């Protein structure tokens, strides 16, 4: 069934007609070319497809496109301004939290949501907050280090929780 859909994607208003049953992950990847939203399980277990909807993390493999109506969506492509990395991205780069990188966009957006809910998590809280995101390469230690880094020295003037 076709529906008309309007929402904001990385700050830009979008209007389109599409099949209501499609998954958001497919819409983003296939129609918009936003391949930073990864799919690794397709069933809500890995967090690779995490996006922010109204600033809250959502799994794009479990959402149907109709659920985006009227809302604002942020994908990894919309996180930095194109010149500077978002502080969470910067921290992942500097802490060595990136190996194959397939889990990375989801983990970064998941981190942003975690920091929105709890701006000063300790190491245990970081581990708990990210436990819905799988990573097969890193063993998470450097990812936790990266988040700790953001928490201990928040970059000035940057919005830690962009809505998109």
């Amino acid at each position: 069934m076709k529906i008309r859909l309007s929402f904001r994607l990385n700050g830009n208003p979008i209007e389109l007609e599409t099949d209501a049953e499609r998954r958001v992950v497919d819409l983003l990847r296939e129609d918009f070319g936003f391949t930073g939203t990864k799919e690794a399980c397709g069933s809500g277990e890995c967090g690779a497809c995490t996006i922010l909807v109204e600033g809250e993390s959502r799994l794009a493999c479990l959402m149907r496109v109709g659920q985006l109506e009227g809302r604002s969506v942020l994908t990894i492509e919309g996180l930095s301004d194109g010149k500077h990395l978002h502080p969470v991205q910067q921290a992942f780069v500097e802490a060595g939290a990136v190996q194959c990188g397939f889990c990375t966009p989801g983990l970064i957006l998941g981190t942003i949501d975690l920091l929105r809910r709890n701006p000063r998590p300790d190491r245990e809280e970081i581990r708990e907050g990210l436990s819905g995101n799988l990573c097969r390469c890193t063993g998470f230690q450097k990812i936790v280090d990266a988040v700790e880094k953001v928490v201990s020295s928040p970059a000035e003037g940057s919005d830690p929780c962009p809505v998109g």
Partner: protein
Amino acid sequence: MTTFSPDLANFSVRFDAPGKVTGAEKYAADYYGPDLVWAGVKRAGAAHARLKGIDCREAEKLPGILGILSHKDIRGTNRQGIIRRDQPVLVDDKVRYPGDAIALVLAENREALGRALGLIRVHLEPLPGVFDLEAALAEDAPLIHEHHPEGNVLLKGHLLRGEVREAFQHCAVLVEFVFQTPYQEHAYLETEAGWARMEPDGSLTLVASTQTPFRDCFEVAEALGLDRETIRLKVPACGGAFGGKDGITVQSLLALAALYCPGRPVKMWWDREESFTVSCKRHPARLYYRLGADSEGRFQALEARLHYDTGPYDHLGGAVMTLGLEHAGGPYRLPNIDLKAWAVYTNNPLSGPFRGFGVPQVNAALEQTIDLLARKLNLSPLEIRKRNAVVAGDQNAIGVHLTASTHLQECLAVLETHPLWTGKEAWKASAGPFKRRGVGLACVMHGQGYGPVVPDVATAKIELTGPGCFRIYSGVVDMGQGNSHTYLQIAGEILNQPQSRLEIVRPDTRETLPGGSASASRTTYTFGRALIEAAQELKQKIREKGAELFGAWDLEEVILMPSVVSHVPTGWKIPLSRIAGELAPEDCLAIHSFQAPIALDRPSPDPALQLHGLPHLIFSYGVHLAAVEVDELTGLVEVKKYLAVSDCGRIINPRIFEQQIQGGIAQGLGYALTEEFRVEQEKVLTRDLAAYILPTALDLPDMESVPVASFEPSGPLGLKGGGEIAVDGPLPAVANALAEACGIRLSQNPFTPERVLRALREQGV
């Protein structure tokens, strides 16, 4: 992208990290294109059966279906495989495991594809299946490959040294131990994916997530009856592989699909369930150990029987078994050994390369056997290892002379003074109510490279580009481990250039030169050596041109600096961009090959074992410590602290090294505690990441990695391989810690709460 790249001359930040954190990096799964065709595979779903027919009539009628192909559409050998080509691209005679491919469907979209796959009817005549390792060896067992001369034995190996029977008779102590390990699934986050297109000039472009681009082209060409030269395989960023993409996954099927819709891009991307069903896994193994020592705890004799379940196809199973056989006696002095190993065909899921390559299995059995022996002798687990660990100049257990750097004793010495070791009694004593704590050790060793017969060669190419930067052409895949960043660093060190003046071309069979597989802990060693030579040659050409332009007599006066060549006595400088313009195009390039040295010892005269990699010359070593807490009420085993002390030669990039060690430990802890891939006869019971439990951030401790200062003279800048060794230690270290905590020793991993609780109950806890 450059706007994001923090230019750190010290190379501490991986060049590929900015692209990965912004989502800009492209993986094989990220290739689409106008007019895209989706390709998918009908799987057998049965373990052992004769193929009688395929009925596609209903499926073909669906709108959006472009074609359905079977083995009849394949012009080549329709066989793929690395050592034995025993796996069909599309089944033509019989089905040997549920993941076998029967038909290939091409569709305009994924919805049509899914519906068509559901409508294809496969007519199979069931055959009795072989699901147990030992049953597969029985005289009258059904044969998986009727024409294999050894029946269901893909490969067997035997290593004999000294007088084992006699030595056992003189041992003061003797222990026996049997251990069984299950499948481990790679569970890389990026499932198998690729993209292909037949170009107007008749060539075939493939993009795939693979560890072996050059070898893949050979295999695809042979299987499909194509000219290898017409196939171009490009490897973009790879979302993890760990050995699971060492060998063909989507490549042949995608190429076949592309042949049938010329000009249109074709995409194949397995979903998680398909990946779980089809992909290769760590070999399940049954290991029988018998170890004897004198009253001082010095090992005298070892007997071991190793059974590896290799599943339906070779897929490097023989090589995995051979590495296991080679490592079965570990890094110890052992004058008398009798080691036998079998890689056995079954109708179970496909086994194959997985980080550690047969070693995690044997190390789990050996290192537990050692602890059992130490207990009998009342020796500490550390002491017994110190008494037996090899030093440089020794022969190892299978008799190979250790002429390369060997620093296991140094690793043990570091551990001995580490607070996790010295403070272990206090830590154990402070366990809370209903908790028990234990600290376990395991030594590790890991051979690097291909062994004596298959040449371990890589060819590096480096270019001075027009703007005066350096471009490294790497034919070796980086599946996330960071080897390509280390290449930049090596070239940067030789050429005295910062990261911002270096770039890398990823594997592309047309642009880059063969570099071998991204496997066997060899990537940085072999390609790194080739690259050093190439970079030095290019540096020489640049300095010579500089000397000519400066009018300098003495080449020593001309040095290479970031972006310029400089004449030291006068301080004159010429930009590298000008040098690039002055040099003839062929002089802007340097190409060099390096072949890794091989061991001269022949522990076995068996040419098959040599072909499959026995023995190695260079080994990395280490010792691992796991501190675990067991909950008596739930059976939950938690690893609280972890230490890995490693001898991997000189560490060129500490952060990348740590990433590798931590990632390897995490995989090893998953293997020890939670990861269990279950099959029952024909049914794969583990189909998704809800059933296959990977460790999350909550399940893993902080892990400390301490490299010992060592240097391998043959290695690039002194390094040895570090890709695999970390995965060999966690299972035995945890098992030994669990035994120390509460006296239970399970006969199989993972040590799930159910198993631990049952064992505790049996003990009356």
